[in-house]
């Protein structure tokens, strides 16, 4: 299981897992949506993700997550470049509901070191969803 306390969060209900910088390959964040967001959306039936190589800036809409009932947008949470998208989740969008923090991840983005520091920690995010 993913240690949810080790993740960063946004108020758009995205989570970010930040790679260990000591690996030398730069800072990479894996981005998905939280279980809270997945529950609110209902069954996810369609996912559209950005092209690999796209440069993103915070707030830009870079993807869509559709459920039977509604459409959620994927917002870029950081400055960076898209390295990889999760083709498995495009093929089987139900992974977003089943394993939002694991197999249901959406994209990997390379960012500058410290580029995700300003985001919410677990405690602040939980407070947001309970507010």
């Amino acid at each position, binding site marked *: 299981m993913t240690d949810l306390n080790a993740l960063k969060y946004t108020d758009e209900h995205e989570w970010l897992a930040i790679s260990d910088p000591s690996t030398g390959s730069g800072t990479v964040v894996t981005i998905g949506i939280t279980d809270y967001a997945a529950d609110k959306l*209902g069954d996810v039936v369609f996912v559209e993700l950005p092209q690999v190589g796209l440069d993103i800036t915070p707030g830009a809409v870079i993807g869509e997550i559709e459920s039977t009932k509604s459409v959620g947008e994927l917002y870029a949470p950081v400055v960076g470049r898209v390295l990889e998208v999760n083709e498995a989740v495009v093929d089987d969008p139900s992974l977003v509901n089943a394993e939002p923090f694991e197999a249901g991840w959406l994209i990997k983005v390379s960012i500058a070191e410290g580029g995700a520091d300003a985001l919410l920690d677990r405690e602040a995010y939980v407070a947001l969803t309970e507010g």
Partner: protein
Amino acid sequence: MTEARYTPLRERHESLGASFTDFGGWQMPVRYTSDLAEHRAVREAAGLFDISHMAEFLVHGADAAAYLDYALAGRLSTMSVGKAKYSLLLAEDGGIIDDVIVYRLAEDRFLIISNAGNRDAVGEALAERLRIPAVTVADVSDEYALIAVQGPASEAIVAEIAGITDVSTPWSEQKYYAWTDARFLGEPLLIARTGYTGEDGFELLVRAADAPALWDATLAAGEPHGLVPAGLAARDTLRLEAGMPLYGHELSLDIKPAQAGLGRVVASDKDDFVGKGSASAASDARVLVGLAAEGKRAGRAGYAVVTEGGTAIGEISSGALSPTLGHPIAMAFIDPSSAEEGTIVHLDVRGTKIPATVTALPFYRRKK
């Protein structure tokens, strides 16, 4: 802001882990576990819905049938006792105040079930139209709860609910759009073979106080048959596949019955009724059609329907990725010149044009 209302089954929904959503001022279960699983259960086995938010009116009196012929668009006077009929409550200008189901309980007694969000409007319109002596209309919504068992296993399930006795009509003789008398725990129960999912099914009208016991007994009877509690999200995709209109989407005060494909519901040869003479629409008025597309990306309510060149020719009223069919479906009001079956139009899905074909409704029809 008025306070949100809950049905008598609130605690049942909470203990089943339901997510709630606002619907017509009511907090209703939108799903218990999964929209898609609940949808599939109704198509393949059965689902149990709490629809107690809907409003009920009792019409009583020697002239009740004549009164309803005047107050509603259809001809109710010729309906036999034991039957039910879909009808419309029209405004003077032919706009739709609500769609209703009318049950004839006795020669001089009818039950009207209307949408929750239109309860006040329906109550006011029914009261205003009381020009005939010896008829009374009572809003009994708060006295009753309504639960629906829908799906191919419905008959087997409802026949096995513990506590239901004195069923007047044998199960095998209960027809679609008919109702029968029964008792639940000794108290009156109305069992109607009606629904909003495109499947066989029953709607059970019970005293509000007995609703939790009936809910429990129905879940217990249904468990061996695959019955699951189902929320409004599944109800919406089920009715959309079945091509059934939803008030506020396919029906409104600005839509005439003929535009929504409901011309047959209006008995225009009746002597006089509210909306007569206005129920037909202008010949260039947009009409309701079904649209089917490929892929997984659904057009949603409010999205434009456009030509290949981008000219707006209509608007989607309801749309989803059909869980049963696996492709996007929608209902839309479009210009009559593009409404012929087989016409290719385009859906403007947040800036992307997706081709769609005008298709006959319903999208899904159950096997008999």
